[in-house]
């Protein structure tokens, strides 16, 4: 629904744009550095994944509302946990919007994909050998509508009535469906592959667990 209209909410001054970007980058790094034991290899892999998904989003931008970031955020959230998932979502949003258009909406897109990553962290997709693809497909469809709703909030101003917003959402339904279909396609094609690739990075939760266990053992 986001691309159905040409209006993206308030126009920001360059300074306000910069403040939002700095805050988002700060949030992403804050989430990443809270990881107690992140190896250099893990950082390289995550950065590579951020760059790849950013490039894919820019590449697919001409296709209306086909968003590879959504499934990627789901999988990162599921495999690496909510905090790294949110950091991933924020970084991809910032980097890709620097190339395809930055503004007030960046905040809402980052929030939307962060929410998707948090949703992903609640999934139990099993392991690479016993991958529960059905759960991923259902989540991929639901997350399209969730993201589009959150991103659409960017057009809301004090002058927007509930009825205005409802009509706006209604206009975007074909694009929501397209987003869901795109997500499903990405999930079917690359879900298992990405899930397995991310498995080589220990999840934050696993790391925390191992740290706690170390202390317990040492104590």
């Amino acid at each position, binding site marked *: 629904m986001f*691309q159905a209209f040409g209006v993206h909410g*308030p126009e920001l001054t360059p300074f306000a744009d910069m403040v939002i970007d700095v805050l988002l980058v700060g949030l992403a790094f804050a989430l990443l550095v809270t990881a107690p034991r992140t190896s250099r290899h893990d950082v390289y892999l995550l950065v590579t994944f951020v760059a790849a998904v950013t490039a894919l989003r820019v590449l697919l931008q001409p296709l209306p509302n086909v968003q590879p970031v959504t499934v990627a955020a789901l999988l990162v959230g599921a495999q690496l946990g909510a905090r790294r998932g949110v950091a991933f979502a924020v970084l991809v949003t910032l980097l890709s919007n620097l190339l395809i258009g930055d503004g007030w909406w960046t905040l809402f897109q980052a929030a939307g994909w962060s929410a998707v990553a948090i949703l992903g962290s609640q999934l139990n997709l099993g392991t690479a050998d016993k991958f529960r693809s059905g759960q991923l497909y259902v989540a991929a469809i639901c997350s399209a509508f969730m993201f589009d709703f959150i991103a659409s909030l960017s057009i809301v101003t004090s002058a927007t009535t509930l009825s205005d917003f409802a009509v706006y959402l209604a*206009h975007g339904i074909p694009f929501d469906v397209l987003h869901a279909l795109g997500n499903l396609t990405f999930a079917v094609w690359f879900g298992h592959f990405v899930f397995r690739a991310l498995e080589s990075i220990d999840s934050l939760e696993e790391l925390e667990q191992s740290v706690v266990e170390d202390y317990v053992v040492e104590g």
Partner: protein
Amino acid sequence: MVRRTVLACLLLATLSVLFPAQAMTPESWKLEWEIDLPEGYITTHPIIDNGSVYVRTSGFWTGEERPQVFAFSTGGEERWNRTSATTVQHDMSPLLLLSSGFGPCGSWPDLIAVGWADGTVEVLRADDGTSLWNRTSASQGWGITGAIAQDGDHLVVPTRTGMMRLCISNGEMDFEVELGLGWRNGILTTDDAFWQGDESGNIWKVSRNGTSSLIADLGGSIRHAPIQTSSGIFVHVQRGATSTIHLLNVTNGSTVTIHQGGASPAIPISNERYVVTGDSSFLSIFDCERNCSLVSEHPTTTNGELAWGSAQTVWYPVNQPNGNWAVTTITETGNITSTVNFSTPHDGYGTAAPSFGESRIAMGNDAGVLMMYVQQLTVTTDSQDYDWVPIIGAILLISTLSIGAYASSLNRNEWTWRLVMLVLLVSTLAITPDLSSRWSQSVIENSSTDGSDTWNETWPESWIDTQIVILEIDGEQQVVGGLNGYQTALDLTLAAADEASWEVNVESTELGSYVVSINGEEGSGWEYFLNGERAGQSSDRQTVSDSIILHWRLVRR
């Protein structure tokens, strides 16, 4: 079984690639001969018929040269010529070939009907050029300049001051009526009447008994034969530096303006569904199964005649200093797929369309050289002219599904789902622009208006039940009203902008045209409302009623 299906699909795809439909491409034509006609322009299309080519010139008016009508064999040998010593202006009434026939008023051999600029209509024998009969009509500065029409065993002639109907076999007059003054205006013949435009923008209806009535006054000048379409009578009106296109409802005489075009319109042509117009800015395609709505445009300058080369190619002279002819190909849905140039050794200003015979094209321009092109024997295909996208898309989708079916037969269900999803996504992407457009229209129709754009008592009463456009920037509004007949929100906006001197910048995208800025203001976007209801699709696809308040608002906070 599955393997056979896959093989059949691949075979079908291969055949489609190897044997595409052949297009009439410039590359497939070769100049066979050319003749420099003495001291004259060629301003109207030649005619190729039965081994002969007929062409007329329009004199330069230097020395003693006078306009002529020539007949050549298709091999380039001159058969006869006919000079008018008395014609008074540039002759541009197209020649009319009358195949031999008979009717209640007599019989006739193969003839060429010629309208001269001194007001004379003359009928010549096609075989030797001798005059069978002639009849004079009024001349005011010039006489006959428009296209003569055949109506059974009669000719209907657009004269300088009106119209006359003459028996083909002997020139006997059936009727002559006074209408408005004409210039290059032709006649539309329908079952019950004849329709003609004039230099004052009037559309006249003349019944078969010669009774005339003024049906509509559009202002401007009508310089072509009105065109009958399933949506009404189509006219392209010349107005100073612009032009407008109108539809006339023949039942009640009402007219609507459907488009604003560029300067100096060409003579439009039509087939069963589409009308093609030209002017100094664009060649435009209108779909008359959809109220003659604009489908596609190609930027060019063409101010004279247009011609169908085949069901889906339009040939036209580009009226510029080094102008050639151009060939525009349109799809079955009216979209322009390609435009290629047909260059000749004598490119330059021109208004005459080419003429097509069996494997031949005859053409001429202001250089006054008649050129005969023949189709080369070698079969050539031109990928530029052929619309490959749908066929390649279909082949790819079918092939992908076939491979998916094959994978399924091998129990590779994972790959089957992948391929099915890919096909589904690509198909959905292909239909999304149209689907979203229809969906948005349906949302608007079913949602209630908030009534914020209601009638303002300070507006003139003459604006009641007309089209009104409000432009709002930072709370300040400018309003243009009293507009009529615009079919889309974009056309209405551009009409208002023209009236109020707003500068509108429009960007074309796959999902339609978007207004990027008005008067240089971009903000974070422009949104528009129809009778207070937020519109949900691009303004070029949003239809508007005859009584509407279109409100553009700059978003900037």
